[in-house]
């Protein structure tokens, strides 16, 4: 348990704005809510200095007024730190973490497709996981999205129209 507390103290010492924002849920599980404007420096420090060198996953959340993005980062020794940032629903812009983790590519494409995030620095490529003909502006994992929204039809017709 001591290890998680050490990590918590280190994080708060380096970034005073995280005071009372870093939570230890259980052994090897830590969560931190980071202001969106500070995520770049916190992410860099956590990955490079604190040895959270594995990106387990990126989870997008619909939090109502804001959209949340969580980076689940792990150390080789098993601790997972989840960094949460919240960005406005109308303009959900985040920076890509592919310079640190090339594997983040599909994780970021997933939140682009399913929640409508705009990820700066993500190189153009195949979308994931929705079909190429998926109608624009339809984000299935947003809470207000229902399958009825698709009654205009996806698939082939729209794809031809896109082309």
């Amino acid at each position, binding site marked *: 348990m001591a290890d998680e507390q050490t990590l918590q103290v280190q994080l708060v010492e380096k970034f005073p704005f995280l005071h009372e924002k870093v939570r230890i849920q259980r052994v090897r599980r830590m969560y931190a809510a980071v202001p969106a404007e500070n995520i770049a420096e916190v992410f860099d420090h956590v990955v490079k200095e604190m040895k959270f060198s594995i990106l*387990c*996953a990126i989870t997008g959340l619909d939090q109502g007024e804001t959209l949340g993005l969580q980076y689940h980062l792990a150390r080789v*020794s098993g601790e997972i730190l989840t960094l949460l940032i919240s960005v406005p629903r109308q303009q959900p812009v985040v920076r890509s973490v592919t310079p640190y983790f*090339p*594997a983040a590519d599909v994780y970021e494409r997933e939140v682009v497709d399913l929640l409508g995030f705009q990820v700066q620095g993500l190189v153009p490529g195949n979308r994931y996981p*929705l079909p190429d003909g998926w109608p624009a502006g339809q984000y299935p994992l947003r809470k207000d999205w229902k399958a009825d929204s698709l009654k205009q039809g996806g698939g*082939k017709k729209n794809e031809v129209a896109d082309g």
Partner: protein
Amino acid sequence: MADRRRVNIPFGPQHPALKEPESFLLTLGGEKILAAGVRLGYNHRGIEKACEERTYIQDLYLVERVCGICSHSHSTCFVQAVEEIAGLQIPKRAVYLRTLIAELERIHSHLLWLGVAGHEVGFDTLLMYTWRDREVVMDLLAALTGNRVNYGMNTIGGVRRDITPEQAGQILTAMDVLEERTRYYIGVVTEETTLINRLSNVGKLSYDDAVHLGAVGPTARASGVDRDVRRDDPYAAYEDVSFKVITDTHCDVYGRAVVRVLELMEAYSIVRQLLKKLPDGPVTVKAPRKIPAGEAVGRYEAPRGENVHYVKANGTDKPERVKVRAPTLANVQVVAHMLKDGYLADMPIVVAAIDPCFSCTDRLIAVAHAEPRPPETLTWDELRTYGIDWYRKRGVDFTHLNRTFGNGAT
């Protein structure tokens, strides 16, 4: 005229060499693969969204159907996250039984892989042998859980079925049989020169690349990356058993085969230890229908590698968010790297060597129309024209060849 030294070949989404739909766009220079692009999503079924509209107990069965091979890995990963949020203390016996099924699942999955690998390199005898022996563990799983796959073993608060002393005896007998067979397969993999030569130096992945690109499971361990969630971030009963994390430094398909056959031996040992130490007592505790607000990240070493589930609860009987990151999603990006500079003929075995599971990876929407409408029917010619146009838009154009060979298509 296009550069004839570079040819783009679409491989999939429907292709005889692939067991599930995924699409690769290969750029070839002669027989060599110069670049490979991957397009996924053909198995996207909307499971994460569907989870938000169902109760936890319904989700458990849905999540188990994310994958047909490693179904228990998804249901355990999910249920452990839910139990962490609810603060449930699971009876020891239930934890052991979960772990037992997990290892039996690993055994069937690795034997399945060995057969597929044999098939992909034209060694079908190996496929017949391993799949015959795999029936031993499949029968066992059917006897213990009632099903060969999708065992329905887990429930929130424990497991749904106990095992009898007779069944424990059957498991031990089966482990002896399988161990003997696996010794034979270890011999085949490490001594059979045809197989060694076919698999060596194919699908190379260096240690640095495996770490940098985020490979997981046997794929990473065969490149010398000593990581295993069962040891590094122990869950279920793994803290109570001893086992070796198998690594190999061949960094190719051969290494991946070695890691898997040796992991089978560890799995037999874990199963024996679990049965020896199996505590008495109940196998379930009562779980609340509504799960208090909270969140948890679950991690699980599936046969294919690290499986990650994130669950967020909002105090109701339905989760706020369920996120699944299956091991293949981490590994498939490594495949594009492995294919590069390899030969086209190696493609099936290189893809098979990560033991891909694309239904896990995509998990999530068949575009179901909310309102019934008449089905669209395409004639054969329309379908063909549609296909040609689809590829043409993506830079794959056979017009020139078709004209040359007089196929009549334009």
